[in-house]
């Protein structure tokens, strides 16, 4: 009897934990907390772009570095979009893929492909602008004044009562000859040295001559990098850009951006995928609906066929669903329509271990075992086929995950593999605990009915 009490308490704890888990999933979804489900582009709507990188002109040893600086450049540009959680990643083709490098950009919520492509493909903008101190001070005063109420200040729309704080000079990266990384001879700080072409040099000399004592702001992609004071006329068209806290790595990447004009690695758009928000939302709705119905029908089938064990299997299937959803939130797994299909499929498959065990139990009962030892024996004997069968499914999932090139299939493989692992756990430990918790000691008519199943064969 003591053993039964133990199984009963474990069963109660398991139930309580999974109800808590279910509540956690529900509340994090309602509150949209950090743990809320991450939806793939096909469910949330957005743009998925695949660029092929041409690394043929880059020495083998530099390919990795160039690709990562490519990613940084694109990431910086994508961030200008103001998209929440954009994804920029480099993908290596590997042996199977043909050895090419790809850059994948995902922009949730963006459906204007043209705008996205234009922004990503643009060259970095280097601009030299004159600082209008009076306007700037005025603007800063406004920011100081408005700041404390917590509202962010948008400088571009703030009223510039004393004129534009930065005045365009016409000197831009278009007039650049080349850029180099240098170190300041006194302080040892890294700096970017730019050399203008003839036209640029003349313009630069003119600007510096006319504005001695004033500051010039150097903009890169719309952000001020530094704003040195002009001490004298600079002829020869050479300028140093040094931000106080610029690391040599940052300086290096600026040099690279400027030198390559566009990008460290030339890229071409190979694939585009755009999914409208309404299409994504309806796909999500349909997936959730089919998940609920599939679960209900499977539970009904199990209870009709296997009676009490079937009911217990349905409960452990519910726990399976809770664990999987928690894992989706914790890892986090990006959910796609194919991933959700894989999940619903895995609910159907997760039952398999239970069915194997129940059929085995039934055989043991037939041989005259009592319910308790029948349960133990059924589990022990079913284990080998559960193990071998699930291992082969795991092999499939691993190969799919490893080789798949689309996020759709990767998501599917991850969910499928997770499902196999978790279903083994729930079938072997959870179902067993529940069964042992309710298994009667005596062989009454009722308990025999409850533990029997299906048709007599």
């Amino acid at each position, binding site marked *: 009897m003591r053993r039964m009490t133990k199984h009963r308490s474990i069963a109660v704890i398991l139930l309580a934990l999974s109800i808590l888990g279910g509540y956690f999933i529900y509340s994090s979804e309602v509150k949209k907390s950090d743990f809320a489900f991450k939806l793939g582009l096909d469910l949330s709507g957005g743009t998925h772009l695949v660029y092929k990188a041409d690394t043929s002109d880059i020495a083998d040893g530099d390919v990795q570095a160039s690709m990562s600086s490519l990613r940084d450049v694109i990431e910086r540009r994508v961030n200008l979009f103001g998209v929440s959680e954009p994804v920029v990643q480099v993908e290596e083709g590997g042996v199977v*893929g043909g050895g090419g490098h790809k850059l994948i950009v995902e922009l949730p919520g963006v459906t204007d492909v043209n705008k996205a492509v234009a922004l990503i493909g643009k060259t970095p903008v280097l601009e030299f602008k004159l600082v209008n101190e009076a306007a700037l001070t005025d603007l800063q005063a406004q920011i100081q004044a408005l700041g404390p109420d917590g509202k962010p200040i948008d400088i571009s729309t703030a009223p510039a009562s004393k004129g534009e704080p930065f005045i365009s000079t016409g000197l831009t990266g278009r007039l650049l000859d080349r850029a180099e990384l240098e170190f300041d001879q006194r302080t040892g700080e890294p700096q970017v040295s730019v050399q203008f072409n003839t036209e640029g040099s003349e313009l630069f000399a003119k600007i510096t001559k006319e504005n001695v004592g004033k500051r010039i702001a150097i903009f890169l992609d719309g952000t001020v990098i530094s704003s040195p004071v002009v001490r004298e006329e600079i002829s020869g068209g050479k300028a140093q850009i040094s931000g106080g806290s610029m690391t040599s790595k940052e300086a290096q990447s600026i040099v690279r951006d400027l030198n390559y004009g566009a990008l460290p690695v030339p890229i071409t758009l190979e694939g585009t995928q755009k999914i409208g928000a*309404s299409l994504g939302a309806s796909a999500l709705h349909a997936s959730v609906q089919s998940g609920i119905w599939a679960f209900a029908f499977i539970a009904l089938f199990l209870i009709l066929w296997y009676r009490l064990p079937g009911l217990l299997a349905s409960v452990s299937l519910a726990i399976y669903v809770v664990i999987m959803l928690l894992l989706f939130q914790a890892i986090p797994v990006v959910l796609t*329509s194919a991933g959700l299909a894989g999940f619903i499929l895995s609910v159907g498959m997760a039952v398999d271990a239970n069915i194997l065990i129940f059929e085995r139990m039934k*055989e043991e009962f037939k041989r005259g075992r009592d319910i308790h030892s029948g349960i133990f024996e059924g589990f022990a004997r079913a284990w080998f086929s559960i193990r071998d069968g699930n291992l082969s499914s795991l092999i499939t999932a691993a190969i799919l995950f490893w080789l798949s090139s689309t996020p759709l299939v990767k998501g599917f493989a991850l969910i499928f593999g997770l499902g196999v692992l978790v279903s083994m756990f729930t079938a072997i430990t959870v179902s067993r605990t529940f069964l042992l918790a309710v298994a009667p000691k005596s062989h009454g008519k009722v308990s025999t009915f409850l533990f029997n199943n299906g048709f007599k064969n």
Partner: protein
Amino acid sequence: MFVVLYRKWFYAVSALLVVASLASVAVWGLQYGIDFAGGSLIELEYASARPTVEMVQKQIAATDVGAFSARESGDKGFIIRTKHLTQEQHDAVISALSKDAAGKVTGADEKRFDSVGPLLGQEAARKALVSLALVILAIVLFITYAFRQVSEPVSSWKYGLIAIIALVHDVIIPTGAFAILGHFQGFEIDTLFITALLVILGFSIHDTIVVFDRVRENLKHRSSGEAFEHIVGKSISQTFVRSINTSMTVLISLVIMYFVGSEATRHFVVALLVGITAGTYSSIFLGSPLLVTFQKLQEKKSR
């Protein structure tokens, strides 16, 4: 067990289905999705009534994008497939379709735009083939290993060989079904179809392993003089209910997904429905009886 007894009939059913599938592929060929073939796909939805197919075809033809196909989708939509479009060509098609015959702008919402360059398509197709081959190879090696202790009367590599036969059977039948559905309904061979095939392989092998495992166990407790044929028959009948019930629960999920689920995965679900049915059939009616056939062949040789 009737499955072992009438195995030739069950082989005949499989052979017939396989031949029919291969013939469908030979006659109609396969429709490849843009993710393998490369190309662009535009899904449009009109705010009010949609124009006729002829109208849409005329509008696209005027934009000079080369060969294309346009078919109706849903109540107010169209799906248009073309070769890989450039940004400008894409814009031209959209603006052409957003106007009615008189040139007045109507509301056409672009719900989906997929575009895959030829290089990317080739790469995806190559990856798909490699992963199929790898999965089959890995599973066969795994089975040979898992059943390594079983060598009498059929050696363990033959279990692996039978698994390949069953797996090839399970891959060919849904492919044949998609050749037919592709010809009449526009079903395409795409990344999701290949994924479905891999899932079918995993599921079918899982089923086959359950029966083989039973054979392995029954061989251990074999009473002297018990025929191998009898052992296999017994193993099939012992696992029969389980195989059917497991397939039932999976088929329940799939049927529900077909009717309720997302449009994006509907063809994927059809592939799984066909394949999992074929897989269940092959593990009960093809794989295990083949063990008996192999053993008989071996007997004949040694005699």
